[in-house]
Structure formats: C-alpha cells, structure tokens
C-alpha cells in the first residue's frame, strides 16, 4: 500500500512538538526539564490504559461485527445508543486522548458522531473521583452538577452531530 501524506501526519505533528521542546530548552532549561518530568509521570500512569485500549481494539476487530456496532451505535440506535455512549464515557478511565484510536475505529465502523461526542463529554464524570469532589464542593453541588452534565452531554452530542453533518 502506498503511504499517503495523511499516514505521515502524526509523525510531522510529533516532529513539531519536539521542535517546540527544543525551543523551550533554549530559552528555559527549567521549564524543559519540568515538562519532561511531567511527561514521564504521565507515561507511567497511562501504560495500563494504553494496554486496555489495545485489548478493546482487538475485541472490536475480532469479536464484534460491524453490523452489531451499527445496530447499537449507528444511525438508528436511538435512545439505547445515547445510553451506551453515556455509560461508556463514565466507566472509561485514563486520559481522554488515549481513547481517540478506539473511537476512530468505531467511527469507521459507522458509530454516530453524536455518540462519540457524548462519550467524550461523559469522561468528565468519574465515579472514583466523586468523593474527592464532594470533599471540595459539597454533596448538593456535586449532585446538581453531575445531573446537569449528564443531560447536557446528550444535548451537546446531538448539536455536534448536526453541525458536523451540516458541513458534509
């Protein structure tokens, strides 16, 4: 298969980021080193999530038929699709960008953009972090904000989908 410009885009992007690091290193060694320390801390944390996403990709490509995905998360999935994406976003773990490859694969399988947007929005709601959130902001505020965000996640997913489709 001939390599396209697009298949190199990621490497160009990485190259630009490395150039930015080089520029920062020239002007502020402390910021450069601090960035590297932070980078290493993130890498250590995300390795298990990276493995989880890879395992889910294998399951998606091996055991789940495109027809099944379209049935549950495609154009005609309806309310069930919103619920799946809502629940998926809440239970998914790790940094948001680690889920992009899996979501990209799901988009290719026919998953609605609205569901992808709702999944990403609900990554903001993390049951494991709720006790800490309650500690900082109180139980009433936490309950109201969580409820509002759950409702808004579906509304924004719907709006994103309509805007993206309108531009096609």
């Amino acid at each position, binding site marked *: 298969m001939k390599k396209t410009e697009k298949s190199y885009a990621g490497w160009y992007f990485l190259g630009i*980021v490395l150039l930015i690091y080089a520029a920062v290193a020239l002007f502020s060694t402390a910021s450069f080193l601090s960035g590297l320390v932070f980078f290493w801390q993130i890498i250590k944390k995300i390795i298990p999530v990276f493995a989880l996403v890879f395992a889910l990709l294998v399951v998606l490509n091996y055991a789940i038929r495109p027809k099944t995905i379209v049935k549950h998360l495609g154009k005609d999935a309806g309310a069930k699709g919103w619920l799946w994406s809502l629940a998926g976003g809440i239970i998914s773990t790790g940094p948001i960008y680690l889920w992009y490859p899996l979501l990209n694969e799901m988009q290719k399988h026919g998953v609605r953009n609205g569901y992808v947007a709702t999944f990403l929005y609900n990554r903001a709601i993390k049951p494991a972090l709720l006790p800490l959130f309650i500690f*900082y902001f109180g139980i009433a505020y936490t309950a109201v904000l969580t409820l509002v965000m759950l409702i808004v996640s579906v509304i*924004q997913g719907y709006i994103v989908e309509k805007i993206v489709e309108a531009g096609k």
Partner: protein
Amino acid sequence: MKEEKPSFKEALRKSGKSMWMSFPILLGAVLLVSLANALIPKQAIVNFFGAVPFIDSLIGAGIGSILAGNPVTSYVIGGELLSQGVSLAAVTAFIVAWVTVGIVQLPAESMLLGRRFAITRNIVSFVFAIIVAYATVIIMGIAGL
C-alpha cells in the same frame, strides 16, 4: 450475505496497525500536555479573575480549556479560587471546561477523529461549560441548597 469473521491474528494485526498509526499523535499529545503543565503556573491563575461574574465565567472556561491533566488538579485549583472569592459560576465553568474542552489535545483529536468534529466538539463544549455553570448555580439557588 453473511459477514466473514477475521482470524485472531488478522484482528491483532489490524489493531496493532491502528495503534501504531496513533502512536506519534498520542506521544505528541502527552508531550504537549506536559509542557502546558510546566509552563503555566497554577498559583497565578487566581490573578486572571476580576469582579464581573460573567466575564469571570468566560475566563474560567478559557483557562480550563487550555489547562490539561488530572481532574483532581482542577478540584484543588477550583477550591482555592472559591476561597479567594471567585464566583461559583466561574469556578464551575473552569472545572467543566478542564474536563470537556482540550485545546492542547485538539491537534491529536483532529487527526484521529476529524478536524471538523474536533473543532465543533470543543467549541460546543466551551459554550456548554458556561451554560452548565449557570444552570448549576441557578438550580442550587432555586432549590435553596
């Protein structure tokens, strides 16, 4: 017509290729997030806020959109902002934007999920960060919480 099931080896190869294609993008995203955290001093955030609640909400959503990382950090900063007298709506907009908008991750999101999708999603999420903030504060007020 019945769909042909791929072999496990084929699924593994396809998934590996997909991850490899995403690898430089993910690595670049982690590097950018790390640099943003190193360059933006968290202690200075409170200085960005003034006394006009709506403008503060815009500022909160703006700063939350640029900063990235563990949501716990946004709780700590949010708690600190509240204790410094910043409005609840502004702090809420900041916390919500932190987890729903990602300017630093935007290049990675654009490359993997589509530019139009990524830009639209981030703009809509930014607007909703302010709407969610005010809706939460208004509901709290009405319910007397």
